[in-house]
C-alpha cells in the first residue's frame, strides 16, 4: 500500500530531492570577505541537478552573496575576496584555467529587478548567442530566439512585436524576457536572485510555474525572501543566517521539521 502511495507521490513536486539526482554544484568551505568584513563563513552546499534549490534567510544573511559566488559575479566587486572550493560538475570554477566570462555562459543569472537591455525584444534574446557566436547565421539565431522565448513562456505574448523595445513590456513579461535571455545562451545552471520580488502575485505565479517547468532541463538555484515561494518551487532548501549556512535539507523537511532552532524561529516568523 505504501509503495503504491509512493508511485503517486513521485509525479508531484512534494519538496523532496530524488535520490538519483546528481550533484551539479558542490561548494565546500566557502568564505567570502568584503574588504575586512567576512560575509560568508565556511559554507558547504550541494546543489542537485534538475532540481530547484532555494536559499532563504533574513536580509544580509549572505544568500545572495553565495549565489553570486556560483557564477563569479562577485569578481566584479573590487573588495570581494573568495576562498574555498566551488565545483561545477567536479571542476573548480575558481581555478586559473576557468574564464569567468565562459563560466557565466554556463551559469546564467536572472536578477531581482527585471533588467532587459533597452533594445528590441529580439535583440535582448539574441545578444547572448551573438557574443558567444553560438548561432551559425541569421536563421539559426532566429531559431534560438523563438525557442528561448517559447521556453520562457513569452512567445505567444510577443511574437507579433519582436521589434518593440523590451522595456515596454510589463514587469512580469520583462522578467520572463530576462529568463529567455539567460536560456538563449544554453546554460547548464540558472541562478535566480529574488526573481519575483518586484512583481505582482499573478506575474509571480507565472514565473514560479516557469521555474518548475525549467527544472526539468536545468539546475536551478533561487534566492528568495518569500518562504512560501521557496516552499512552492523548491525541492531543497538552504537556510542562511549571518553568513552561515545553518541548515540544508529537502524542502519538505525544512518546512515541517527543521532541526536547528534558528531555522525553526525564522520559518515560524519568530525573527527575521
Amino acid at each position, binding site marked *: 500500500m505504501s509503495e503504491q502511495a509512493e508511485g503517486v507521490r513521485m509525479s508531484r513536486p512534494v519538496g523532496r530531492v530524488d535520490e538519483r539526482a546528481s550533484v551539479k554544484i558542490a561548494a565546500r568551505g566557502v568564505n567570502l570577505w568584503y574588504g575586512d568584513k567576512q560575509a560568508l563563513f565556511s559554507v558547504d552546499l550541494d546543489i542537485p541537478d534538475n532540481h530547484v534549490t532555494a536559499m532563504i534567510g533574513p536580509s544580509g544573511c549572505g544568500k545572495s552573496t553565495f549565489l553570486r559566488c556560483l557564477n563569479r559575479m562577485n569578481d*566584479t566587486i573590487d573588495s570581494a575576496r573568495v576562498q574555498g572550493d566551488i565545483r561545477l560538475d567536479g571542476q573548480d570554477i575558481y581555478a586559473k584555467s576557468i574564464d569567468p566570462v565562459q563560466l557565466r555562459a554556463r551559469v546564467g543569472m536572472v*536578477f531581482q529587478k527585471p533588467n532587459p537591455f533597452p533594445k528590441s525584444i529580439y535583440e535582448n534574446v539574441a545578444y547572448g548567442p551573438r557574443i558567444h557566436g553560438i548561432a551559425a547565421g541569421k536563421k539559426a539565431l532566429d531559431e534560438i530566439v523563438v525557442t528561448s522565448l517559447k521556453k520562457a513562456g513569452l512567445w505567444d505574448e510577443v511574437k507579433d512585436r519582436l521589434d518593440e*523595445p523590451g522595456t515596454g513590456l510589463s514587469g512580469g513579461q520583462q522578467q520572463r524576457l530576462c529568463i529567455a535571455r539567460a536560456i538563449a545562451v544554453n546554460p547548464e545552471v540558472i541562478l535566480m536572485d529574488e526573481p519575483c520580488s518586484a512583481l505582482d502575485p499573478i506575474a509571480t505565479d507565472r514565473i514560479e510555474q516557469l521555474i518548475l517547468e525549467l527544472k526539468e532541463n536545468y539546475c536551478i538555484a533561487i534566492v528568495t525572501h518569500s518562504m512560501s515561494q521557496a516552499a512552492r518551487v523548491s525541492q531543497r532548501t538552504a537556510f542562511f543566517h549571518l553568513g552561515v549556512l545553518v541548515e540544508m535539507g529537502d524542502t519538505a523537511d525544512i518546512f515541517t521539521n527543521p532541526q536547528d532552532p534558528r531555522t525553526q524561529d525564522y520559518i515560524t516568523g519568530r525573527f527575521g
Partner: protein
Amino acid sequence: MASTEVKTGIHTSPEAARRLARRYRQEAFFQFMGLIAIVLALSALAWLMASIFGTGLSAFRQHEVQITASLDPELIDPERTGDPEVMRRGDYRTILQRAIYDRFPEAADDRKLRLQLMEVYSVAGGTGFLRDFVLDNPGRVGDTVTLWIPASDDVDQMLKGKFDLDVPQELRKVTDVQIAWVRELQASGELRASFNKILFLNTDSRDPELAGVAAAVVGSFYALLVTFVLSFPMGVAAAIYLEEFAPKNRFTDFIEVNINNLAAVPSIVFGLLGLAVFLNFFGLPRSAPLVGGMVLALMTLPTIIIATRASLKAVPPSIREGALGVGASKLQSIYHHVLPLAMPGILTGTIIGMAQALGETAPLLMIGMVAFVTQIPESITTPASALPVQVFLWSDSPERAWEERTSAAIIILLGFLTLMNLVAVLLRSRFERRW
C-alpha cells in the same frame, strides 16, 4: 452627548491648527523667495540681452552710396596687357576721387571741402570695390560703371541716429556741409541702407565699415575642430578607464581629485601652459588654431571626463549585471550597453565643454591668436583669430562704429552658442532611452 461635538485630539486642537498655518506660511514664503530669485535672474538676463541687441542689431544694416566711375585704362592698365597682376596694382583711388568730384563739382575746387567730401565715402571700401569689379570684369575697362560702395562709418552712424546733430559742428564727427551732401544723395536715391554682408564675409579691417568676422569664425571653427578631435576621444576613454577599469586606490583617488581641480583652474593658466609647452618647447606655429585648439582641449578635458563619468555612473548597474550575466566580457558590456546609454549625457557634457571653449579668450591671447588677421585662415596652422578674441579687439577700438560691431559680434557668438546648446538638447532627446 452632543452628536456634532468634535473630539479634540493632538491633530484637531487649535494648537494644531496654528502649527498647520505656520507650516503653510513657511511654504508660501519659500515659494515667494524662489519666484523673486527667478525674476531677478531673468531681468538681469533681459537687461543684458536688451543692451547687446539694442546696440548690436543696427550693425546688421549698412548704408551704401552709389558712384558712377569711369574706368580709365590709363590708370588701370596703361600698357593694355590684360594681366590681372597689373590691374590689381591700378590707381583706383584716383578713379574713385574723380567719380566723387564729378558727382559734387562744387566741392572739387576747395581743398577743405574736398577732404570733407571724401569723408562721406569709405575710401578704402570704394577702392577695394572698384578693384574687385575690374578684376571680375576685365572687359569693362574704359567703360563708365555705376557701383554701390559703403558709406563712411561716420555717415553710417549719423544716419543710424547715433550722433546728436544739435550740438555745434565743431563738436561732432560730421559737418553741416557733409550732412547737406548726404541729404542730397538720399533725395536722389543714391544712398540706401541694405543688409550688411560685409560683417559676415570680410575679415578684420582698420575701417569699421569694412570689418567682418569671417576670419574669426573660421579660426574658431578650426580651433574647436582640433579641440573636439583631441578632447572627445581622450576624455571619454579616460573616463571609461577611471570609472570602469581603474582599481580604487590612493593613486586613482589622487588622479580623480586632480581632474576635478583641473576643471577649476583659471583658463589663463592653460594659456600660459600652451605658450610654454606648445610654442616654446615644441615650436608649434604661433597664432595658429592648432595650438589654440590644443590649449582649449586641455581646458575641455576635465569637463568631458567629469560629465562622462557622471553619465556612466548614472547607467543602472542592473544593465551591466545583465550583460555580464549572459557572459559578456567587461569591455563588451561597456561598449554594447553602458556607453550607448551614457551617450546623451556624454554628448551634452562635451557640447557644453565645447561651448565653454568657444567663448574662451584668455588662453588664446597667451598663444597669440589675438593677431590682426586680414586673411581667412586656410588651415589649422595659418594664423587666425577667434570670435571672442575679435570681440575683445573690437571693443578696444576707439571709433564710434566699433561699438555696434562689437555687440554684433557678441550676437553672432551667442548665436553659435545657442546653436550648440540646441544640438545638445536635440542629441539628448534623440538618444535618450528609458531603462
